Structure formats: C-alpha cells, structure tokens
C-alpha cells in the first residue's frame, strides 16, 4: 500500500478499486494482431516468388518509422521534422560497421540503432529548449547539419554512392539476405508497435499523455517533463536508427542525400500518420495500408506518390484531424490496443 502523507483515512473496502485496460475489442485486436504476425512471419515459405515480400519490406519499415514518429508527435507532443537524421545515422553506421570494419551485417543493425540513440542526446540538448513549431524547425536544421557533415566527411563519403558489397554481406545467399531483411523489417513494424503499446501502458505513458495535453499541468502533478520527453526521444531515435540500417539492407546502395532525405523519411511518414490518425496506436497501421495501396497504383511515378499522399493527408488534416482511426471512432469508440485505463470499483461509472 502507498504511504499516506496526509493521514487520510482509507475508504471503506480499501482494496475495492482496480484498473482495467482491456476491452472486448482489444482482446480481439491482440488475438488478430498475433495471428497476422504469424502469417507475416511465415510469408517467405509460402510467397515463393516474392511478389508480396518485396513490397512488404518497404511497407513494414515505414510502419516502424510511423509508429516512432507518432510516439513523439502524437503521444508526447514533440513534432519533430528531423527523424531522417536518425535514419541516415543508422544507414551510415551500418555501412561503417559492416563495410569498413567487417562486422556481421545483421548484428550491426541494433548497433546502428545505438549510434542513432547516441546522436539523439546532443540534439536533445538544444532542441528541447525549443517548443512547438520551433522544435520542428530546430530538429530539421539539426538533421540538415548532420547530412552535411556526413556528405563532407572523408571517412563516410556521403557525397558518393556507397554500397554494401558482397564481401560485407558475407557468405549469405541472395535468398537468405532477402528473407532476413524481410524479417528485420517485420521486427521493426511489430516491435515499433509493441514499444508504443508497452510505453503507453506503463507509467511513462501516463506521464507522456499528461505532458502532451498540458506541460504546466503535468509539472504541477510532480511529472518531470524533460526526463519524460528525453526517454521517448532516445527510444524513438534508437528504433529509427535500426530502421535506417534495415533500409540499407533492403536496397544496398545509398548517398547521404538519399539516406537523410526529408521527403522520403519524414514527409511520407507524416502523411502516413496523419492519414491513419495521430495519437492512436492503430492509426499508423491504417495509414501504412493506404500508403501501400497508393504506392502500388503509382509505382511508376515517384512524384505523383507524394502529391497524392500529401493531398490526402492535407484533406484529412482539415476534415478528419484524427485520421481514419478518428473516423472509425466517430462510428464506434473501438480501442484495438489496450492502453486506456478504466477505474473499476464501487461508485465508479461504467462508461
């Protein structure tokens, strides 16, 4: 039991209250998600021509990126436009580890995430002094600065096209490489979603959502605002860095311009989250499905993909600011991931 500083008498039936998180649809949602993950995991065995596997790699790492950006923007109110800096950091860390130092490329993926996490700390030192739109611009400026440093670096040679060569990929067959890359992308998507759910279910999630709604209010309840933000900032950077490494594995050539691309790794991610629903765990999943559909239709026209997705995102932002998930919620308040807390006990409402 808690220590009562004020010596308030305990309510009658002192253990009468408990917290419930799950709902009927969240149980169904979890079961459905587990089934989907199993189906996706076994895909290399039944999708023998790779007609699903190849596009899914892209869809899955985009889902991982989208969940992380949503964690920052949707749940912590930190609208970063600089996440491409962690994608690029992960990409170049993998090139350095696997290509220059000859480490195992798969094991280098989490190490690349750590590099991105390490980079996020000094960025936070200055970006956290900014808020709202200034934070967005500040993170973008930081990303551009990192891109320029990588471009100019004699070791990293970001201005040249660099590739993972056959040597650094070791003795793995083409098929193994394709399959492991696919599973890593799946891990990014599933792990990214799981990270958000676990964070939101924890005390950190309670603090985060408080901070998003009112920083002053959060402080007045004893919440350490900077520490809360810093925690998710570093976690998101780590996971985004891992994504950067997987992106390189899936298309083993890059330049700094491509690895640190604000349009590919930031604009598209924002479109996905805005279309699906900012501030919900389900939103990015819905958004990435729209992205997949549009991508399939417009695969020959890169520019049109941005125009169409950006257009949909702009319209959604005006007519349905909570995205597709928000539209579903208007119809029925479904919650597929059990993150909300309900008080159960005598006198508490059951709504």
């Amino acid at each position: 039991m808690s220590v009562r500083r004020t010596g308030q008498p305990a309510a009658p039936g002192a253990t009468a209250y408990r917290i419930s998180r799950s709902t009927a649809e969240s149980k169904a949602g979890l079961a459905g998600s587990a089934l989907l993950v199993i189906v996706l995991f076994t895909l290399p065995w039944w999708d023998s021509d790779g007609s699903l596997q190849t596009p899914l790699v892209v869809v899955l790492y985009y889902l991982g990126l989208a969940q992380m950006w949503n964690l920052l923007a949707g749940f912590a109110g930190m609208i970063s436009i600089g996440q491409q800096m962690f994608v690029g950091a992960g990409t170049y860390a993998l090139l350095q580890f696997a290509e220059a130092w000859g480490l195992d490329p798969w094991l280098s993926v989490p190490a690349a995430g750590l590099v991105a996490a390490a980079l996020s700390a000094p960025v936070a030192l200055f970006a956290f002094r900014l808020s709202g739109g200034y934070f967005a611009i500040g993170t973008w400026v930081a990303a551009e600065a990192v891109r320029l440093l990588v471009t100019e670096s004699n070791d990293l040679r970001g201005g040249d096209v660099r590739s993972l060569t056959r040597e650094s990929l070791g003795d793995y067959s083409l098929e193994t490489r394709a399959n492991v890359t696919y599973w890593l992308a799946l891990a990014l998507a599933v792990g990214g979603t799981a990270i958000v759910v676990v964070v939101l279910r924890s005390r950190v999630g309670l603090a985060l959502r408080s901070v998003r709604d009112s920083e002053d209010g959060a402080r007045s309840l004893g919440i350490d605002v900077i520490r809360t933000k810093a925690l998710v900032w570093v976690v998101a950077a780590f996971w985004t860095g891992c994504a950067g490494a997987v992106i390189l594995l899936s298309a083993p050539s890059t330049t700094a311009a491509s690895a640190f691309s604000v349009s590919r790794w930031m604009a598209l991610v924002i479109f996905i989250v805005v279309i699906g629903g900012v501030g919900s765990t389900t939103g990015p999943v819905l958004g990435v499905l729209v992205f997949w559909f549009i991508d399939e239709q417009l695969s020959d026209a890169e520019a049109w993909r941005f125009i169409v997705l950006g257009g949909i995102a702009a319209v959604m932002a005006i007519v349905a600011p909570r995205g597709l998930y928000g539209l579903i919620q208007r119809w029925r308040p479904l919650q597929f991931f059990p993150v909300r807390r309900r008080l159960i006990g005598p006198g508490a409402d059951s709504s």
Partner: protein
Amino acid sequence: MDLVAVEGLSKSFGVKVIDDLSLSVSPGDALGIVGPNGAGKTTLLNLVAGDLRPDGGRVLLEGRDITSDRADQRCRAGIGRTSQIPRPFEAMTVFENVLAGAVFGSGFPLSEREATEPAAEALRRSGLLAKANRRAGALTLLDRKRLELARALATQPRVLLLDEIAGGLTETEVGELIDTIGSIRADGVTLVWIEHIVHALLAVVDRIMAMSFGRKIAEGDPETVMNSPEVQEVYLGVAPG
C-alpha cells in the same frame, strides 16, 4: 517550524507584481489571501508552486530553500496546487488525470496499482467518482474545478494551494466546495486559499492576508482583517473614515 515561508519575495513583469513580500504558514494553518484583481495573488501562488521564479527573495519548505527547485520537484516535496484556469489533460479520462497525480506527485513514484486507491479516494472526496471514466475534455466548469482539486489531492500534499477554486460557481456549488475543502482541512492538510468569494473563505480559513499592488497590507484573524480600514479601502473602495 514553518511549513512554508517566503522571505522578501519580489517579481516584476515590467511593473512590480510582488514587492518584498514575506509570509509564513505553520503546519495545519488555513490561510486565506484576498485582494483586488492585479494585487499579485496568483503570481504569489505561482512563485510558491514553482511555476515562476522570483527576481529576489526565497521560498522555504520546512526551512529548506526550494527557490531554485522546479514545479514538479516542489510537488513531490509536498506542495499541491490547483489552477485558476483548469488545465485538465483533455484527451485522458478523469481517472487517468487523477492517477497521474497519484503516481508521480507523492514523494516517490508509486506503481499504478499502489496509486489506484489514493486516486479513487481523491475522486470520491471531490465528487467525481461517478464520472471517473469520462473524458476530461468533456467536463463542465464545476467538474473541471473538482478535477483540479482531485488531482492536487491525489498528490497527497502537505500544503494545498487553491487559486480561486470557487470562482464561476453557483451558490449551491460553492456550498458543496466549502464542505469538501473543510474536510480536507480536517485531515490536517495545510491550506493557502486565494478567493474572491469571501464568505467561502471565511467558512474555512482561520487567518487572512490582504494584498494590494504586490504588498501585504494586512494579516491576522479574518474579522479584523476584513474590517480594517486598509482592506475596506482597497477592496471595497471605501475611504477610511
């Protein structure tokens, strides 16, 4: 020893809002603060709670200088507050709002399970238990005020700073609030209460400080202070006669 003390506090926003103000509150005290709009009452509360930093002077909690502590540190040290303009976490439920206070606001972070009971108790005392699972953004003004109180109570404060919590409420609602605050006081929580609705204040507090232009103009037992010529003049516009 004083529970809360301020010594020679000053704050200026271009003009002096708090001017060399000193004040002390003993454990179990219930202090009311009155004064016309712009007297610096809310600024004083913000300085004690840590939402503002003073230009000069000190804030002490049990003799310890907390002037450079952040608001969240002061909350965990035992200073709870409500805000004049309620600032609920709108996208969260009423219960989640209060749970946040119960988890993070006491001396050390509690687990959610440990915090559930204090959170439910704070909701019950504030009359919000039956609305626990509603979205906070959908509450009426009275319920938002109640939520401010419930969240502050959930942090298990030793001193509770109330900022015009009765403002904007009907007479009946004010009556309910007086009962609630009276019972909080009876539990030994020290109160510092800013209020324009003087009869609400008089029903609970045992000492009043009157402020004008950032200075203390009178302090003492409620009747003497409210009837003093200085207070009559600034508060009611009655010239001392």
